[in-house]
């Protein structure tokens, strides 16, 4: 028995140490800093004040952008990824499937930085707008707008949404679909009653993954938002590296963690009720 516990601890030790040093301690530091004050030359001076939190309103735009564009981006990713994953998992022949799946990952072989530069050009004055202009469809401004950030987000995060959904659909027992059609369902109803509910775990995973990463995103808004469409991540970079107000930056970081915890908890609640187990009450 004791040997067993010792073994368990030994196995857990590296991960535990990592978790402690790289996650828990920094979080504690950030939490402590968030009640401090900015030093005269920047940095942190110990204190105990709630001013930083009361000041959060100054960064309202960043919160607003993050909390609207992250969910919107997640939703658009989902709407594009689901049909794609469905096609890959259920409609392609196994011979082509591997190749097509590789094509989904290929963009990851290039740095997101380079790919974002490509989008800067595409959405900039020389790119799509000038093309539209030549076609006589007006000259809309695309770069440095929320739309540009959304395009970048969806483009960058789509594969992360495709894969969990693909895996869920791939694992779906195809015989259930036969059973469903045999029991009198037209294909669309089989989809609603069998495919969709059984792929929900993949949808939940994909949404969670994309949403959490988007909440902390800073590169894409920085490049495609041109300093006009700010995310919380950009605010943090600004506060810690430019204005060197560590205390206020910590307060923003703590607020971000709290917002994230609340939304993720709410989301988990929702999906569990929605996808988990005996939801046939609604059918009967």
């Amino acid at each position, binding site marked *: 028995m004791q040997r067993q516990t010792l073994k368990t601890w030994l196995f857990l030790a590296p991960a535990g140490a990592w978790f402690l040093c790289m996650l828990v301690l920094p979080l504690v530091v950030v939490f402590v800093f968030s009640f401090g004050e900015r030093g005269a030359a920047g940095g942190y001076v110990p204190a105990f004040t709630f001013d930083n939190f009361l000041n959060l309103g100054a960064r309202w735009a960043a919160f607003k952008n993050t909390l609207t564009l992250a969910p919107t981006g997640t939703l658009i990713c989902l709407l594009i990824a689901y049909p794609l994953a469905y096609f890959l998992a259920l409609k392609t022949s196994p011979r082509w499937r591997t190749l097509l799946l590789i094509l989904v990952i290929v963009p990851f072989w290039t740095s997101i930085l380079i790919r974002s530069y490509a989008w800067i050009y595409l959405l900039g004055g020389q790119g799509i707008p000038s093309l539209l202009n030549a076609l006589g469809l007006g000259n809309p401004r695309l770069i440095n707008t929320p739309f540009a950030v959304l395009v970048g987000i969806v483009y960058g995060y789509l594969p992360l949404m495709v894969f969990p959904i693909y895996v869920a659909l791939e694992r779906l027992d195809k*015989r259930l679909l036969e059973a469903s*059609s045999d*029991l*009198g369902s037209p294909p669309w109803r089989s989809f609603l009653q069998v495919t969709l509910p059984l792929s929900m775990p993949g949808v939940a995973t994909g949404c969670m993954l994309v949403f959490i990463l988007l909440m902390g995103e800073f590169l894409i808004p920085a490049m495609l938002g041109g300093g006009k469409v700010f995310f919380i991540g950009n605010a943090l970079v600004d506060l810690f590296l430019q204005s060197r107000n560590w205390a206020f930056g910590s307060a923003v970081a703590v607020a971000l963690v709290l917002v994230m915890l609340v939304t993720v908890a709410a989301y988990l609640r929702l999906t569990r009720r929605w996808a988990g187990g*005996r939801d046939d009450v609604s*059918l009967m």
Partner: protein
Amino acid sequence: MASLEISALTKSFDGQEVLRGLDLSVGDGEFWALVGPSGCGKSVLLRNIAGLVTPDSGTIRLAGRDVTRLAPAERDIAMVFQSYALYPHLSVAGNLGIGLRQAGLSRADTAEAVRHVADLLGLGPLMNRLPQELSGGERQRVAIGRAIVRKPSLFLFDEPLSNLDAALRVHMRIEMADLHRRLGRTTIYVTHDQVEAMTLADRIVVMNAGRIEQTGRPMDVYHDPANMFVAGFIGSPRMNFLDAGRLGRPGRHVGIRPEHITVSRVSGAVSGTVDHIETLGSETNLLVRTAELGFVTVRLFGHQEFAANETVHLDFDRQRELYFDAAGQRLR
């Protein structure tokens, strides 16, 4: 309820012919068993009837209506899959009721029909369980229940009992017979188990390599097989096929069932030595090595003591011998 007429049905996969022109005519309310070696096309035939695959040519008529090109949902057929294919995300009640709800039945009528079927199959206490929380036999019953609750004109069963242990199979076999008697629906039942086929069916269809070898009442197929394939496939232990020339009989092969051979320690038409003995208590099977005829299987009733390598003499019941030509066709 309905009759089923299949004519000249063919189906190929990737250029390989799996069904090679099948004809079948199942009367209203009859119970037919479909048997044949693995890979002969039994499941493919059922899937054609259910509409899960479309035949290359031929027609399928149900109650006089041509359903060959209809979608599965429009055929009024229910299939019970070997794998059960229960919806893992729905409870037993949900699995039973889903087909009715989507057919537009009201909530109350669905609940009523589900309760009726649950009573019929003894599923009452399990209604709120998920499939993963059921035993194999219970899942089996839910799968059957899901099919019968819709009151289809035709039932298709694809080896429904093959995943169950021996005791449960016997139990479910009796329940199947009982169910058929009560519901009286036309049924096609694929099985590997000869006892199931023999005991449940009005008619047996023996398939081989995408063709029907013989159709008939269980005892007709058993006693009066059309060819060597059927004679060898039906019956266990397998029928002996012996050289007709050496026995001085007509044709090329003589077929004789192991139970139609008598063994004597004193004298007989053919002598040999006991090579292998299987003692089952209720019967004793001997594999006898003979000089003229090769190996001969003999089935004796009850528990009989023989020693390995003991010399025995065999006599064949000539009334029961069957004769086949070189192509394996029966000579009458």
